[in-house]
């Protein structure tokens, strides 16, 4: 903890001492971005839109770098289409009845954005690569317990009565994007992000019964959800 506080103080000192231009002297930006994800990507067809929301503050600490912190929120109701599940994702649901689940995800990350100087960009404008760490909490609440009769992949008969699955994980937050400035104040940002969990798939689950298959399912869904996020954001260059 001491080390963390010390590092934080050093970072604040660097920022305070930083003699950098920003965009016309504006270093600090507040941004909101959102992404729309198609249900198929996460393997659990649900109701559109599957939106995730992200709020971030960034500070340009030099011509090349900016640092930032972001909070992301995602919430949606899954609605399982048996056919789709059968055909594309998991035969596991083959004989199940319809069910839905509520998904909730909170993500906090700190990151460094590296603006591509070769292209002539000065932070916080232009093409950037993002490197950071994230912490994520995710939870699935199943509203209807299901009974699985079996599938041709699995001989056993499963009976899953899962109520809730949660996950706490940390990992690397990587991304690439591009900031545009409009009217000297408004920041438009688009790009894509990848969250790589560390340790991978570190679920801590609270399931009622046999969990293996559901857990695998959750893993894959989680992986898909974090593997590729496209975002489009709008922000304000504050000062």
């Amino acid at each position, binding site marked *: 903890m001491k080390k963390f506080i010390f590092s934080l103080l050093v970072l604040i000192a660097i920022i305070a*001492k930083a*003699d950098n*231009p920003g*965009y*016309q*002297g504006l270093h600090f930006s507040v941004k909101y971005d959102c992404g729309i994800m198609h249900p198929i990507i996460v393997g659990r067809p649900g109701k559109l839109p599957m939106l995730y929301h992200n709020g971030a503050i960034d500070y340009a600490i030099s*011509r090349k770098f900016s640092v930032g912190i972001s909070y992301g929120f995602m919430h949606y109701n899954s609605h399982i289409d048996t056919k789709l599940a059968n055909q594309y994702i998991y035969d596991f649901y083959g004989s199940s009845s319809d069910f839905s689940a509520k998904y909730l995800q909170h993500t906090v990350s700190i990151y460094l954005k590296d603006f591509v*100087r*070769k*292209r*002539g*960009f*000065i932070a916080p*404008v*232009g*093409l950037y690569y993002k490197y950071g760490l994230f912490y994520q909490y995710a939870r699935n609440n199943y509203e209807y317990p299901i009974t699985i009769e079996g599938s041709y992949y699995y001989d056993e008969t499963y009976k899953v009565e899962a109520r809730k699955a949660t996950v706490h994980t940390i990992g690397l937050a990587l991304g*690439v994007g*591009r900031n*545009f*400035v409009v009217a*000297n104040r408004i920041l438009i940002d688009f790009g*894509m992000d990848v969250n790589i969990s560390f340790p991978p798939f570190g679920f801590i689950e609270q399931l009622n019964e046999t969990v293996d298959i559901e857990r695998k399912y959750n893993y894959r869904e989680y992986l898909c959800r974090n593997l*590729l996020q496209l975002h489009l954001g709008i922000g304000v260059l504050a000062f």
Partner: protein
Amino acid sequence: MRIFTLFLACLLYSLTISAQFETDYKPVVSRGELPSDFVTLSSQKYEAEKESLKSEKGKEKKKKEKFLLESNFGIDEVLLSGRILFNDPLAEYVNKVADKVLANDPETRGKLRIYILKSTSVNAFATNQGIVFVTVGMLAQLENEAQLAFILAHEAVHYKEKHAMQKFLEGDKIESRKGVYKSLSQDEKYLSKSAFSQQQEKEADEKGLQIFLTSKYSTAHLMGVYDVLKYSYLPFDDITFDKSFLENSTFKLPDDYYKKATLPIDVREIEDDDKRSTHPSITYRREKTQSGIANANNTGKQDYLVSETDFNTIRETARFEMCRLYKVKHRYESAIYSSYLLLKKYPNNLFLKKTVAYSLTAMAQYSDKYDFKDVHYNSDSIEGKSQAVFYLMFKLDSARSDLPITALAYVTKLKKEYPNDDEIDGMYKGLIKSLVTHNMHYVDFSNLPPSAKPEVIDTAAVDTVVATLQEDTDDGQGKSKYDKLREQANKVKKEGGILPTASTRYTTYAFVEFMNEPWFKQDFLEAEKHKDDVEADRLNAENLLNNGRYYWTKKKQFALGIDKAIVIDPYYARVDARKKDQYKFLESESGQVDFAERLKLNAKKAKLDLNVLSTKDLDASETDKINDIAVMQEYISDRLATPSDVDLPYCEHDRVKAIAAKYGSDYFIYTGAISLTEKSRAKAGLIVMSILVPPTIVFNIPNLVSAGQYTLYFTLVYDVKTDELKMVSSRELNNSTNPVLLNSHMYDVLHQVKTTAKAK
């Protein structure tokens, strides 16, 4: 009585001219209101002229539009280059002559706008738009007013007959081998273009002569105009360069440094082969004009209709201006010879003396620290008596330190004469520094004339001196060789002057007149004391340049702490290397206007008080502004042309300092951007990357679809007080010049100009 009146008039005239140039010369500047040619944007002129082609159609129209576009922008570049004079005494006089010669053609006269081009070449040009440029070089060489009138009549014909456009259209036909030019070889194309141009010149000569003959100008001395053209490569006079010009009572340059027999001027009348020239041969033109005036009636006609006095004053002014232009353009040998010619007439003129001093100093600096060939013209083929100057400089350069010593001898003489002149003081101290840096010390020069210390010392004399020195100490027993030598050296130092040796050269006696002047001794010794500082300064300057040059890659940044600065005519160019017509005139101009506005905006945000002097937002009352821009542009051109190794102050420091004082800042900024589009350099790489990592296609598509976009953004900041280059920022960006990118970089640079380095 009449003779007396005439004599009185002549006396008054010569007194007037003499008085004007006796002690000094102030460069001519434009006056009055700015003509509309300067305040209208090139794009507006182009659009207006394009209207006249409305009724035309087809390819011919396109060609004409292209001509109008290129010519308007090309001419405006000259007009706003700072090299043009209007409403000044020279332009006013030339316009008066035009009024006289075109008195019978008021329509043409009304359309012509005549300006002076600050160029040493002997020439005049007419444009399709009705602008005529007459060079300073031409005015300096002409013999009388009638000759100028004939030249103006010739140029008026070029304008009336729209020769410029015709030449462009015909040139295009020849180039694309159309019509009668089908199946021409490359060489034949060249010859065809020359032939067409010659045809136009013949027409201009012929019709110009008709205009001239209808005027009240006499043809009595007209033919001399062809001599002016024929000998235009020579200085405005041909006088033997006096050996003693750069010497003093004890400093005598070796005889073999002077070329007594200079190359004679070729005065033969040879029928030149003019097939490859744009103009017919002078012999041909002379004959044609001669036959044209054979039956001319000169009754009641005169060589001077405006004023002979004015003509002579104008010519003299042009000659002084030539000295200045040669100096500014680094043609120092020509500057020395031209100044020498005028000094014969005006021996007390400070401007001329300073021109000689500066030229010598500059050549000494190039010889000492850079490449002398950069400022030296090979004397072998130079005709006339001016060859002696070129030869002398060559000889002085061939021996180490001879040129700096010669320059310092001349400058020190001026320093003694004008002790309070800052410019002379700057040159003087710079030359001492230069000598000291190369291990020349005060004690290396004699304080006694050569007669007292003969150049070749006989052995007995040396022995006596050495013996005396030894007697003063002891027999030398018990002391090392080095102790003995140190003692001798101390003796010499105490006694002053030098111990003559067999290798003593003529340069040893360069400063005998000044060696005992306390200020000279003090300045020399002071420079020796700070020798290391000089070297450190030089290294610092070198580092600054290197850091600046590689700023963008090495993360170096500046913190100049400047509150107020002046920007000289910001530059912007848009180039598309994929197209046949690569330079985008219209976009470049609008980009330049935008660039200037953006500079103001970013300076405001960076809290920097920036005065942007742009030529794209002039109004009629801003003649002073364009005069200031002209001086500043000359300053920047000179600084850019002067290598960083050459420690040379600007030659017109007073003018620059006056501008700095007027605007309240010693900092001049020259900045601009070049936006270049060319074929993408990395398309193959992007395609491979897109295949290997499909998600990157989102970012690669824009680059794959669009061409390669590059931007060069540069900024130079000069401290005109010290002539120091404070900042060099040159950034090559792999991106198009979009407004946000420009804002980012402009703010960054201006922020660095404004910000003060934080204490460590």
